[in-house]
Each structure stands twice: as structure tokens, then as C-alpha cells.
């Protein structure tokens, strides 16, 4: 016998679970199918959350090791207890997954464990631990997320050659870690293991790090990370990893543009060249959905080409970010309920949780130049911010870009301690089409890092006062 629902969501990640909760709030009968055994998806289980747990702990370890003395704190030697650090990470993840189960109960969402598959219009088959069952659904939401993109010639064993998932579970600090891909995930995890003692080399095919982010920001970030001890080999590609020697991995690289190959030795290789939509075995063909060449399912306000089948999150186009998926999940549920859900793709912030943090929202300078749009720029270094000085976190700057005519804020790019928390101010301003002057004339508390935001906003119209 099949159970019938208004909405069946396949995937319990940030997109899926928020969609489910919102649909429940709106009075729809909703089920969320998740095969991982735990809710929260990549983000909560093997992504954002565990990596932040390790980033925070490893940053404190490094601060204690290298900076406490300068602040007048004697430690008598700081020691790493990796198993304990991994344990606190697991506890954080566990607590949050349980939290979602509670939210499901609270909002009347049925949590169905197993792998969901679309079996024709209005039907979802679930293959779970308790056997197979069939759900009938007025609406189906695809929220199956993404998986690690493999690199040809490199086999991930999650032991010595790892993806981000394995890199969160290493049982000892590698002596030498080679990181393939200088994107967000690689730089975050590279930072974790460098702080804990690994010698880290980053191989990047392009001639820059953090592709897609503002170039000035990426350059500053690269300089800062290099100063911290990460070695960058930009404009190089990895052609293979030789795992035959149980003691050392041999990584073959050569310049992207062609040239002499060379071999680097490593204890661990982390493949972090990106992620791709995960729709394997989802039964898309049963409803006539054809993903594009890169695996993405296109959508029109979350509707797929199949009637009453919707798609959100990493499986469809746009930045692969938990908060983007979350916003889409909410808007999708609202649309299913006949409301006017909307996501403003012009204001989706992106944060890299390294130290210093990197945060971005809106247009980059590169994009504005390419569009030929006249813009003004205000920039303020943390070196001139009093709180940054007292905190010993003077690396970085805040840059705000605004239309040359209207002064409307078009983008903001920040690098520095806690900028991931500070970008929200600019997101709100942009949602209200605020001008740089609106931020510049808004009182900010002293002494805080947020004053740098205000000073940068002042800089757009040339009246920065403190630098």
C-alpha cells in the first residue's frame, strides 16, 4: 500500500530539510527521504559543519602555539590530541542532526530512511533498511545534492588519497599533504592540516586561487596563506598519483600550458577540484527529465520540465552553497503551497572559513569590468581598525563596490577575521538597494571590526576618515 503525500522531498540536506520544514509549516503533508542514515546532507555530515569544527579547533591550537606568548600568556607547550579533536567534531555534528529530526517532528514532517527513486509521475519508491515502500506524491522535490567530482587518473580510496570526506577523518596528521584544487574546500581543509603540523602544497590548474571570487581578494588571500606556510603551485595539473609505494605517494604534475612533468612526494593527497550534481539512480528518466552535460537539472522557479517535479540546491544551477539550497527549499515549498516564494540570486554571500576569513557578496570587480559598468570602490584595511589591532588580527581589508551614478552597493569583498559574520550587513543593505552612503551614515559600534565596513563604505565616495 502506498502512502500519499502532498510533497515528497528526496534528500535531507539543507535544501531538502528546510523545504520539508517550510512545507510542514504551510500545512502540507510532507515526507523527506534520506539515504544517509542521518539528516543534514553533505553540509552537516561531511561538509560545512565538521570542517568548521576542525577549523575552529585547529585555529585555536595554532593561536595557542604561536600567538599566546605575544599576548602575555605562557602555556608551557601546547599539545595536540587529535582523537579528542575529532570526537568534539563528531559530537557537534551529532547534536545538529538530532536537532533536525526534532524539527521534523515539530513540523509534522515524516522522515523516511532509504534511497528515494522517482518511479513515474507522482510516485517515489524508497529502498530502505525496513524494505521497500512506495509513496505517492502530488509534488516531488529533488534535493539530492552533489558529490565530489573525481579526477581522471586519480583513484580516491579515502585513506591516503582522500576527498573532503576523508580529509575530515584522518587519524593522524600527514607529514606532507598535497591538495589538488585551490577552491574553498581545499583551502579550508588545507588550513586545518597545516595548522596541525602538515606541510601543505596546493596544485591548481588555473593561475589563481579561489576561481570566481574577486581577483584582488584572491591575490591577498594567496599571499596571506603563503605567509602561513602553504606552498602554491598554480597553473599546474595533476596527471596521476602513484600509490604503489606504501610509504610515499608519488604525484605527477605538469604545467597546465604544457611543459616538463615533475613528481612530488606526499603522505596524503586531497582531491578537491569541485562537486557535481548527484542524481544517480534517481529515476529521472521515468518522468522525462534530462540533466544537462554537467549533470544539472534546469528549473524555472524550481519547476523542472516534468509536471509537479521540482528541484533545488546543488542538483540545479547556481552556487553550491548550503544557504542557497536552504533559500530555494523555502521558496520552493512556498510556491508548492501557492505562495510567491522567491530567491534573490544577486545577494547570495559566499564565505571561506580560513584564517583570515574571506567573504563575498554581489558582483566582483572582474564582473563589473566585464559588464562595462561604471563603479566606485571603497577599501579599508584592518591594519587601521582599532579592534583588529587589539586582537592581533590586522590581516585583510574590506572592499565595497557601488554604482558610479546611483551609489547603489553592487558587491562587497572582505578578507579578515570574522568577515564571514560581517558580510550579512552588506547582504541586508543590498536587499534594500542601499547606497554606500546609507551604510556610511549608519552608526557602528566602537571599537569593533564592523567599523571597517563603515569606513570602506565611506571610501566609495571618498570620505574614509580613519585611513
Amino acid at each position, binding site marked *: 500500500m502506498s502512502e500519499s503525500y502532498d510533497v515528497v522531498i528526496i534528500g535531507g540536506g539543507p535544501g531538502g530539510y528546510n523545504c520539508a520544514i517550510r512545507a510542514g509549516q504551510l500545512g502540507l503533508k510532507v515526507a523527506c527521504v534520506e539515504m544517509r542514515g542521518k539528516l543534514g546532507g553533505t553540509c552537516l555530515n561531511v561538509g560545512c559543519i565538521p570542517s568548521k569544527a576542525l577549523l575552529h579547533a585547529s585555529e585555536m591550537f595554532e593561536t595557542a602555539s604561536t600567538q599566546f606568548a605575544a599576548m602575555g600568556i605562557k602555556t608551557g607547550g601546547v599539545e595536540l590530541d587529535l582523537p579528542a579533536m575529532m570526537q568534539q567534531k563528531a559530537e557537534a555534528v551529532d547534536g545538529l542532526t538530532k536537532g533536525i529530526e526534532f524539527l521534523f517532528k515539530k513540523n509534522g514532517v515524516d522522515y523516511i530512511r532509504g534511497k528515494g527513486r522517482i518511479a513515474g509521475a507522482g510516485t517515489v519508491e524508497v529502498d530502505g533498511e525496513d524494505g521497500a515502500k512506495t509513496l505517492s506524491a502530488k509534488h516531488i522535490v529533488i534535493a539530492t545534492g552533489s558529490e565530489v567530482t573525481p579526477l581522471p587518473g586519480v583513484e580516491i580510496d579515502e585513506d591516503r588519497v582522500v576527498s573532503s570526506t576523508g580529509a575530515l577523518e584522518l587519524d593522524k596528521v600527514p607529514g606532507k599533504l598535497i591538495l589538488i584544487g585551490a577552491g574553498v574546500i581545499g583551502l579550508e581543509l588545507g588550513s586545518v592540516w597545516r595548522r596541525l603540523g602538515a606541510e601543505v602544497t596546493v596544485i591548481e590548474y588555473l593561475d589563481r586561487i579561489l576561481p570566481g571570487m574577486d581577483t584582488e581578494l584572491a591575490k591577498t588571500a594567496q599571499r596571506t596563506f603563503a605567509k602561513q606556510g602553504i606552498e602554491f603551485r598554480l597553473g599546474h595539473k595533476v596527471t596521476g598519483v602513484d600509490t604503489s609505494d606504501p610509504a610515499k605517494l608519488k604525484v605527477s604534475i605538469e604545467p597546465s600550458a604544457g611543459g616538463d612533468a615533475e613528481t612530488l612526494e606526499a603522505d596524503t593527497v586531497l582531491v578537491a577540484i569541485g562537486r557535481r550534481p548527484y542524481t544517480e539512480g534517481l529515476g529521472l528518466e521515468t518522468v522525462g527529465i534530462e540533466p544537462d552535460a554537467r549533470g544539472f537539472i534546469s528549473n524555472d522557479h524550481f519547476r523542472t520540465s516534468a509536471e509537479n517535479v521540482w528541484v533545488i540546491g546543488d542538483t540545479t544551477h547556481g552556487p553550491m552553497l548550503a544557504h542557497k539550497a536552504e533559500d530555494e527549499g523555502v521558496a520552493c515549498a512556498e510556491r508548492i503551497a501557492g505562495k510567491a516564494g522567491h530567491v534573490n540570486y544577486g545577494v547570495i554571500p559566499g564565505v571561506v572559513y580560513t584564517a583570515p576569513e574571506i567573504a563575498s557578496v554581489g558582483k566582483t570587480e572582474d564582473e563589473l569590468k566585464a559588464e562595462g559598468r561604471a563603479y566606485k570602490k571603497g577599501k579599508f584595511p584592518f591594519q587601521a581598525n582599532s579592534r583588529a589591532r587589539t586582537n592581533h588580527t590586522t590581516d585583510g581589508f574590506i572592499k565595497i563596490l557601488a*554604482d558610479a551614478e*546611483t551609489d*547603489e552597493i553592487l558587491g562587497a569583498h572582505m578578507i579578515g577575521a570574522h568577515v564571514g559574520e560581517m558580510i550579512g550587513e552588506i547582504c541586508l543593505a543590498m536587499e*534594500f538597494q*542601499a547606497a554606500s552612503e546609507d551604510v556610511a551614515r*549608519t552608526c557602528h559600534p566602537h571599537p569593533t571590526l564592523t567599523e571597517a565596513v563603515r569606513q570602506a563604505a565611506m571610501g566609495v565616495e571618498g570620505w574614509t576618515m580613519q585611513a
Partner: protein
Amino acid sequence: MTDITVPTLGESITEATVGQWLKAEGDAVKKDDVLVELETDKVSVEVSATEDGVLGAITAQPGDTVEIGAVLGRIDGGAGGAKPAEAAPAKQEAKEESKPAAAPAASGGETTDIIVPVMGESVAEGTLSTFLKKPGEAVKKDETIAEIETDKVALEVPAPADGVIAEWTVAEGTSVTPGSVIGRVSASAGAAAAPAASAPAPKAAAPAAASGDRPVAPSVRRISAEAGVDPQNIPGTGRDGRATKADAMAYVNAPKAPAAAAAAPSVPRETGPREERVRMTRLRQTIAKRLKDAQNTAAILTTYNEADMSAIMAARKAHQEAFVAKHGVKLGFMSFFVKACVAALKEIPAVNAEIDGTDLIYKNYYNMGVAVGTDRGLVVPVVRDADQMSLAEIEKEIIALGKKARDGKLTIEDMQGATFTLSNGGVYGSLMSMPILNAPQSGILGMHKIQERPVAENGQVVIRPMMYLALSYDHRIVDGKEAVTFLVRVKENLEDPQRMLFDI
């Protein structure tokens, strides 16, 4: 804590405009104290406190439009402690400052309150238009010392006792309610010492313009302050219609003319030496707004015709005596017109219908609005179910309503629910005019002066008592053919009233 909400305002009234708050935030209030006035297009309504306490918050500002049930403010429990206690002396202080004349006068002897008299049924408030006596002037009991203007009538306030005016406690232009105290008469004759300060300057209507509306961004605030424009006048393209900096820059940089024009109404122009500025009465404001609204909404078109009134005049002549003897009223023209229109409305229902959004509402009843001119302005009481009334009943009803109108005793109910209107400009001598619809109605008949004119009849020029008829109609709902047919039917029914008897 109790919310102050908009009470039910009467049939067909769904919203009102917030008028003046008679209490300020923090003022102590007693149950049944009037807190705020609401204006509707028909009458004003007072909102009273439902319990003792302190006016905790005012959420609806003067000028805001509110719907029935909307929250206007909040009364905090009187037990709330410090606040009422603090508020009370503060208020008293303020009061004393505002009326320096009071002290010396009061010392002169016993004083008597000057109280606003009852203004007539259904009239809840009025505006204190003029003080005829200044503080310090001697008055005699029952002498008129102030005038109050309401939607319907002007009212004189008599002196309550012999003496001198000790003080006026309200300003000209203030809204007042029956029973409220507007001043004091001192019994002492020696009180002439009281400074002959003129009535306190009218309280600026400032609060009305002040708050509310859209939030103003810091940049917009700066730009409008520098340019001397009201930020609320800037057309906004941002969220919820907010003005962005770009909007503000575009607004102040736009060619000066439109900006100045937009700003103009908010700055009263100087009056010249031979000019006089008089505030529009609320009734006049309502009339102005409703007429303009009708013009803006409906596609008003007018068709004209004329009627030979000989038959009706002959009928009146023949039956007047018997009619008066039986019914006690004279047989006038209006009843014939009402009946002629009812018959035509039955034939052309669109003229008796109204537009509601994208729907039409046809009305299977015939409530005829009869425009009555009073010295305060035009009012339109309603003769209900005119199709079921005899000529005598119609005449009586019109007389009764007209009297009520002139006495300022019309109630909201008396003026609501008309489906068609008759307007008789002929009583003032008009020969031809184009009436404006009384929205949301779709038709109005303009009656005019009966004038003897030579007309051709059976090839002969004869003198006949003629009246031009005009039907203004909403062309959105009434077709030209229907409108013309309607008016021709009215004409036929007037020229040969027997048609109505035979229902042809």
C-alpha cells in the same frame, strides 16, 4: 494592556481617516474618555477608552487610513505604576504654560465652564470655528460667544453666565465634542485686568504631516534635507516603495518644475490684502473628494432631452386640492420624477447597477437619492424603495428628509444606499447642466427650470412649459443606447404620466 481598535462605523463604511488624538502617549485616561477622532466620508466617529489606564502607545497617526478593527493604539493598565503618575503632573504643567491668561482671571472670582452644547442627533463632534469674544471681554448669559461647525450645521455656543471670558482652553480649529469644556467665564466684573491676549494660536496641524509613511534611508534623508524637499514625496523604486538614494538624486535633479509643483500644496501660499483664507469644512472636503473621485473613476457621459411638463402641471392643478385634503402635503413635481425614473430604471437595469472591481452588481430595489442644497453644502438623503411608495408617500418623505437636512439632523443611514440620484438645479434657475455621478451609482438625472418656450406641435408653434433633462451615466456600464432609451422613457413618463399607471 488593551488595544484601541477602530469600531464598526456603519453600513458600507469600511475605513476611516485618523483625525486628531485628544490624548498624548503617557496621558492617563479614564474609561469613556474620548481618545481619538476618526473621520469617514460621512461623519466623524469618536473612539473612547474602554478602561481606565494610561495611553501607552499611539500606532495610528493623524492622516492614516485605518480599517474597521485596526489597532489605533494601546491602553496600558492603570496599575502600571510610575508612568501615569509621572505623566499627570507633566501634562498639567504643559497646560498651565499654554494658558497664561488663566491665573489672573481665575483669581477674580467664581468661574463657570463653557460647555459645548449637543449638536444634534448623530453629530458626534464639530470644529470650533470662531471665538466671538476674547479673554477679558465681558459677556452676558446666553450671548453667543463662539461658533462650532459640524458636518451638517453651524452651532452657536451661548455664554453660560454673566461675567468675563476668563480663558479659552482650546484653540480655533480644534475638534470638540458635546459636553466638553472649551473655556471659562469668570463671574468677577473686575477681571478686565486679564490680559486681552488673543485666542491661542491655532495648534499647527503638524502631527498630521509628521510621521508614518515609508522609512527614509540615511542617504535619502541627507539629500532631501539639502534640497529642501519632503522625502515622502520622492517616488520610490525600492522595497515596499521605499525611495533609494538613486530615486532621491533623480528627484532633486529633475527639472525644477515638477518638483516645485509637487511641493506646492504643502506650503500654503500667501494671501493678498483683499483675499481671505477659510478652512474648508469637512463636509465641503468630502464633497470635493467624492466628486473628483467619481470623475476620476467613472467614464461619465451625459445625454440630454427635454420634457413638456403640461400634463403634470394640468394633473397637479386638477387634483391639488383633493390631494392636500387627503394627504396633508402638496402634490409636487419630485414625486412624478421619482416615479418616472423608477419605471425607466426597471426597464434599463444597468443604470441602477454599480461596478465592483471586475463585477457588476444589479440592484433589484430602487432607492432614490434626492440632492438637497443646504447652506452648509449639498447632501443627498435617500427615498427608500420608491417603487413601492405612492406619490403622496414620496412627497412626504422628501419633505421630511429636506427638513432634517436643513436642521442638520440627517443620520448616516439617511444618506446611505441610494441606487440612483435626482438632482434639481432648476430650483435655482438652471436651464441646462451636466450632473456628476454620485459614486458608485451609475446614473444621475439632472432636472432643470421649467420654462415656457415655443415648440412645434403638429405643425404649429405652441407655447409649452418645457424642462431640459440631463442624464449623466457611467459609460463603463451603461451603453449609449441604454442611456438614451432611459432618458426618453423618463421624458415619455413625464409627458404622459398615465403611462406609468398602465405600466407601459
